[in-house]
């Protein structure tokens, strides 16, 4: 068993991978670092404190006190020149000019400024004696599943499956070709199918580590859960990994140099990094582009992962995206076998 060529080829693939510290970082470490950085940067913390300024004049300090009492606002009294400068540079969201009428000066295209105007107006009107006719109460929610990090983790998982599939297979195949190792294998009775299968098998072994690391990290640090079944996530990731391994094989099937294959990889991956909804929803692209965007394998994979992890969908509801992922993998693999350069 241990001396079966498929086992030995797979072991060789795995050893070459885990003995390369850079590869370990890019496959396992980098997605976690990225998830951590983006999870912190885009955590849900609301708009924060808004700074408003009152121009020095009659009744300025009473107005500033009233503004400062409103939740979410801080207020300062500023001289004319300083006030204009701070408004222009966005350090204050709103400038209040005391007088009759009261004048609010602000940039109406900035969400922050419009919010500041509403809050400041309410505070000042109440200070002058306005009574609100209806009683209100706030209920605040931060539901796991609706945060950016919940959107991000499945996307990073998909992107990682793409990157490690393409690099893991494509790079090693071309390296073996440039080092004439492929030709040397051809001089033995080795079966070609064993050689290609060994890439798939070693990918599957590392896949479990990859997925467990990223999903585990999301759960541990950001409480990103999996609402659907783990079996469904496992199925989709295996399918995704196989599909991108096939695509990697196709990209590497003819290239003779590392430079050539690197260029091809980037050509294949770059559109998907941008279009496939890893970091932001692809719904932001114009409607005319959406059919193309949705036909990309990474888009389909991300959609399927999000459907299971966020919405708790069942596999049976994911026929379309899973079909797209499978088709890309199958077509690439068959095509790669046809045109593969074995020496």
């Amino acid at each position, binding site marked *: 068993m241990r001396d079966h060529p498929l086992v030995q080829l797979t072991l*060789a693939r795995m050893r070459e991978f885990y003995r390369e510290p850079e590869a370990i970082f890019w496959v396992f470490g980098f997605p976690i670092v990225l998830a951590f950085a983006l999870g912190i940067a885009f955590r849900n913390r609301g708009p924060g404190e808004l700074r408003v300024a009152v121009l020095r004049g009659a009744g300025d300090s009473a107005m500033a006190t009233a503004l400062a009492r409103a939740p979410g606002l801080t207020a300062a009294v500023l001289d004319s020149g300083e006030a204009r400068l701070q408004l222009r540079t966005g350090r204050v969201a709103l400038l209040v000019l005391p007088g009759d009428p009261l004048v609010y000066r602000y940039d109406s295209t900035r969400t922050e400024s419009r919010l500041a105007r509403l809050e400041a107006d309410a505070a000042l009107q109440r200070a002058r004696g306005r009574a609100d006719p209806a009683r209100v109460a706030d209920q605040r929610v931060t539901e796991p599943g609706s945060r950016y990090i919940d959107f991000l983790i499945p996307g990073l998982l998909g992107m990682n499956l793409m990157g490690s599939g393409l690099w893991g297979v494509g790079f090693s195949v071309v390296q073996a070709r440039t*080092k004439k190792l492929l*030709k040397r294998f051809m001089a033995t*009775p*080795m*079966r070609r199918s064993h050689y290609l299968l060994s890439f798939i098998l070693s990918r599957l072994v590392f896949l479990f580590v990859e997925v467990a690391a990223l999903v585990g990290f999301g759960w541990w640090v950001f409480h990103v859960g999996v609402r659907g079944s783990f079996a469904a996530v496992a199925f989709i990731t295996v399918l995704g990994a196989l599909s991108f391994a096939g695509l990697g094989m196709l990209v590497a099937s003819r290239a003779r140099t590392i430079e050539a294959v690197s260029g091809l990889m980037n050509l294949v991956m770059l559109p998907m990094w941008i279009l496939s909804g890893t970091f932001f929803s692809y719904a932001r692209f114009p409607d005319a582009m959406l059919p193309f965007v949705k036909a990309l394998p990474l888009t389909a994979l991300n959609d399927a992962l999000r459907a299971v992890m966020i919405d708790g969908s069942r596999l049976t509801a994911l026929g379309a995206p899973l079909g797209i992922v499978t088709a890309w993998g199958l077509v690439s693999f068959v095509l790669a076998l046809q045109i593969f350069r074995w020496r």
Partner: protein
Amino acid sequence: MPVLAIRCAGLTKRYADVVAVAGLDLTVNGRECFGLLGPNGAGKTTTIEILEGLTAPDRGEVEILGMRWSGGANTRALRERLGIQLQDTQLADKLTVEETVRLFRSFYRAAHSVEEVLGLVGLEEKRGAWVGKLSGGQKQRLAVACALVSRPELLFLDEPTTGLDPQSRRQLWDVIGRFRAAGGTVLLTTHYMEEAERLCDRVAIMDHGKVIALGTPRSLIASLGAEHVVEFALADGATRAPSPAELSALPGVRAVRPGLDRTALTVAEVHRAVPALLGLLERRGAELSLLATHHATLEDVFVSLTGRQLRDA
């Protein structure tokens, strides 16, 4: 083992505008060590890769151990019986010696154990070392180990010792010697004449894709009609140098080859030719800056056939 290990006839291979092999016929007997000799670009590697079934010839036929490269199961069955070392393979740097041998071993049905084959090439102490950390000679012995692991009947070696230091070269010669002593057949290419003379029963000298001489090293050297080469150079250059006609008239001299920095004479009897040469130079008042004699080698055969030195051919 059939009587003929290799038979090929009318091999031709053309790359774009270069004819690499131009109608080549060869036979290699079982248990023989056969050498393909020639300068870089003579077509040695193309020839050996056609015989190994890695390159398809444009024309001609090849029979290896009585079988043909007909594809599928037949080709795999033939590969089981061969050991192949290629000129430019770089084995994976991050695998150990043992892992590399075990990998190649897994491709064959009948094979040496890892211990046996590392013993054959003397790499037992390096079995746990990464391939990337080996010296050039050790890497080359590992490449031969990967070829020997299948217990081959026929071993192909393409420039096995090129670029190695003399000690590593001798170690590889010993490995090849042990394989032959166990009854194996070897086809090797080299551009070291000393290597061919030492290892090969028969050699074919190749130039421009053709065999220009074939025979035992001894018979090829004997074909020069003389066993020795005398080389000399003059301190004051060409002014007082004797003409080729004068030199070939000296007793025992069979051929004269003027060179860039020295002149070489092929001679049958050194004891008669050298005193005569010294006498001639003294009469002309020429002063020697170099005088050397050696047994004629395959290198001299190549030079006499092509008029070029092997190394700069």
